[in-house]
C-alpha cells in the first residue's frame, strides 16, 4: 500500500527558551519522526519529562514547533496560521490528561460538548445541535439527564467521557490522547480504553495514544514508540516491543513495571533502571541514555545513535544493537 499516512511527523523539534539564562533552551523534543496510518494507533510511552506530551501539543499547534514538519493527510500544517488551521482542526482533536482541569467548571456538559459545534458552525440549527449533543452523550454512556449538570458533579471517569464526547462530536479522523487514563482509578481506566477501542472500530479513527503505563498502551496500540529525553529511542509493532525490547531503556522500563502477580519474579530479581534523568537544558552528549545505561561504551558517550530499522518494522536508536 502506498497510501499517505494520516499523520506524518518529520524531525519535529520543540525547544523552549529558559528564562534568565541567556540563550539556553530546554530540549523538550529533538528530531522526532513517525507516522500514523488511517485507523491505526501509535502508543507513545516514556517517563515524565521525556517530551511525549510536548510532542502532542506541538502536533496540534498549542506550541509552535521550532523546526520539522507535521503533515496531516499529506498537507504540511506546521507553518499554517491559526486561521488557516481552523478547518483542519475538525480532522484533529485532543483528549487531555486531567479530567478535572480540562473541563471548564462554569459550563454545563451540554455547553462543553457543544463547543466544537459552535466554534466551527457545524450545527445547522439549534435542534440539530441539541440532537447531536444528546446522541454523543448516549454514545459515551451518559444520558439526557446529565446534559444540564456541571462537571464538578461528575466522577473522574464520567468527566473523561465528557472529554471524549467533546473530542469526537466533530467526527475527527485523528484523536490525540494525552495520558487520558493516568488520572483515573484502575477499574475506570479499562472502561475508557474499551470505549476508545470501540470508537476506533466504529468510526475508523486514528489515535496517537500517550501514556506512561506500558501495560495499558499495549492494549490499544498497533505500534509503540518509546521516548527518552525528547528523542524516539525505539519504535516497533506493539507485540514486538514487549516480547523483544531492544533498547536498554525500554528493557529497563519494562522490568520496572510492577507485575500484579505475586508468584512471578519479585523485585530483587529484576534489574530496573538506576539513577535519575539528566537535565533537559544540557542533555548529555552522544546517546542521551548513556548516563543510566548499564552497557554504555565510549562510543555511546561521543556519538548519538540514529534510529535504525532492524527488520520487521522494528527501529531502535542504540549503537549496541
Amino acid at each position, binding site marked *: 500500500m502506498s497510501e499517505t499516512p494520516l499523520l506524518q511527523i518529520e524531525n519535529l523539534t520543540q525547544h523552549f527558551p529558559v528564562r534568565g539564562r541567556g540563550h539556553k533552551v530546554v530540549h523538550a523534543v529533538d528530531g522526532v519522526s513517525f507516522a500514523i496510518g488511517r485507523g491505526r494507533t501509535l502508543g507513545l510511552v516514556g517517563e515524565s519529562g521525556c517530551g511525549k506530551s510536548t510532542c502532542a501539543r506541538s502536533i496540534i499547534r498549542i506550541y509552535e514547533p521550532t523546526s520539522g514538519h507535521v503533515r496531516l493527510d499529506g498537507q504540511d500544517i506546521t507553518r499554517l496560521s491559526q486561521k488557516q488551521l481552523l478547518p483542519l482542526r475538525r480532522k484533529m482533536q485532543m483528549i487531555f490528561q486531567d479530567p478535572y482541569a480540562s473541563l471548564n467548571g462554569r459550563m454545563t456538559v451540554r455547553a462543553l460538548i457543544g463547543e466544537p459545534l459552535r466554534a466551527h458552525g457545524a450545527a445547522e440549527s439549534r435542534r440539530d445541535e441539541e440532537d447531536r449533543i444528546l446522541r454523543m452523550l448516549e454514545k459515551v*454512556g451518559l444520558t439526557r439527564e446529565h446534559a444540564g449538570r456541571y462537571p464538578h458533579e461528575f466522577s473522574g471517569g464520567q468527566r473523561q467521557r465528557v472529554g471524549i464526547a467533546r473530542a469526537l462530536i466533530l467526527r475527527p479522523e485523528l484523536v490525540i490522547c494525552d495520558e487520558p487514563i493516568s488520572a483515573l482509578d484502575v477499574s475506570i481506566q479499562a472502561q475508557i480504553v474499551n470505549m476508545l477501542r470501540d470508537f476506533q472500530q466504529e468510526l475508523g479513527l486514528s489515535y496517537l495514544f500517550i501514556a506512561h503505563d506500558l501495560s495499558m498502551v499495549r492494549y490499544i496500540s498497533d505500534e509503540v514508540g518509546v521516548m527518552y529525553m525528547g528523542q524516539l529511542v525505539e519504535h516497533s509493532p506493539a507485540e514486538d516491543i514487549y516480547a523483544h525490547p531492544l533498547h536498554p531503556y525500554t528493557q529497563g522500563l519494562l522490568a520496572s513495571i510492577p507485575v500484579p502477580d505475586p508468584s512471578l519474579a519479585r523485585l530483587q530479581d529484576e534489574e530496573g533502571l538506576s539513577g535519575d534523568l539528566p537535565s533537559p537544558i544540557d542533555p548529555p552528549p552522544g546517546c542521551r541514555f548513556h548516563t543510566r545505561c548499564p552497557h554504555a561504551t565510549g562510543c555511546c558517550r561521543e556519538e548519538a545513535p540514529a534510529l535504525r530499522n532492524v527488520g520487521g518494522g522494528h527501529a531502535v536508536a542504540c549503537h549496541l544493537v
Partner: protein
Amino acid sequence: MSQPWARAAAAGADRERIAATPHSFGVDVWLRFAKKPTALAGLIAVLLLLACALIGPSLSPYSYDKQTLSLAGVPPVFTAVVAPEAGRYFYITPNQKIIEVDDQGRLLRQLPMAQDLFMEKRVSYRCGPQDEGLVYLDYSAAKPALLDEAGNPLAATRVLWNRTYLLGTDHLGRDILTRLMYGAQISLMVAFIAAAVNMVIGTLYGGIAGYLGGRVDAIMMRVVDIISTIPLTLYVILIKVCLAGGLVGIIVALSSVYWVDMARVVRGQVLSLKQQEFVLAARTIGSGTRRILLTHLIPNAMGSILVTATMLIPSAIFMEAFMSFIGIGIAPPMASLGTMCNDATEALRSSPYQLFLPALIICLIMFAFNFVGDGLRDSLDPQLKR
C-alpha cells in the same frame, strides 16, 4: 424483603446516576457564603444601608437642603431647662438662642428676643404663649444659665429626645437624618458607578494583556505601572480640579484611576488560567480569542473580579468622602458623607454629634463591604471546595 436472594436489576443508567440535586456554581457559592456569619451580617448591613439610602429620603418629611435656621444646632438628645409653667421646657442652643420644647421633646419655636442687656451680660426673651413674661439668659458664667423674671435661676433640668429631628439638625437647621440618607445615597452611587466602570475597564484591559501575553502584555502593564506610580490622591485631585462639575467630575476621577488594581488582578488570573487544560482544549477545538476570553477565562476569573470590586467600593467611598471633606468633592447644598463631616468640623466643639454620625455611617459602609468581600473571597476560593 420478600425475596432477599432474588437477582436485583442492575440498570445501566442507575450506575451512572448522580444522586445530588443539580445546582450551579452560583448556588454553591451562595450556600458557602450563607454559612459565614460575618459575611451574612455584612450583606444584611449593606442591604439595609442601600434600602435606607434609596427609599429613606423620599419617606422623610424634610428635604436634604431645607434650612430652618431658627431650629439650628439641636442635637438628637439634649438637656432642657424646666420652665416655670408646667409642661414647658427651654433648650439653650450652642449659639445661645432659646428653643421652646414640649414635654414629648418636640421643638416648638425659637423664643423672640426682647432686649439685650449687655451690661448685665444677660439677654431677655419673651416666653409666654402671647409673648407675655420674660426669661433671662445669663451668659456671665462659662455655662449659660436661665433666670426667671425675678432673676432666680431655673435649676431643674430634664433630658429629652429630639422628636422633631430624630438625629438633630446641623448648623443651618437641616435634618441630619435626611441628609445622612441622602448623603449615603450619593456616596454609594458614586462608589457603585466607579466600581462598575473600573470592573469593565480593568477586566478587559487585564484580560487582553494576560491572554495575548508577550510584548503586548509588557507594554500594557508598563502603562499600568506608570499610572500607579502617580500618587492616587494627587491624581484624583488633579482630575477633579480640571473637570470641576461636582458629582460627574468625581465619578470620572475615581473611574479613571482605580482600574489599575483590577487590571493587575485579572491579568494575573488570566495568565494562570490560560495554561490550564480547559483553555488549551478550547484552543485545540478551534475556538477564537474572543470566545476563549469571554466564555472561558473571564467567567473563571469572575471570583477574584467580584472580590476586588467589592473591596473597591469602600475605598471609593472613602476617597469620595475624603475629597468632599477637603472641599473638592460634591458641591453644597448636595449632601455626601464627606461634605457632612466637613460642615461639622466648624461646630465640632459644641456639636460633636454632627461629625460623629456621618463618620459612623462611613465606618459602617466600609465594614459591611469588607465583610462581604471577605466572605465572597472565601466562598469563591476553589481551595475550600474539596
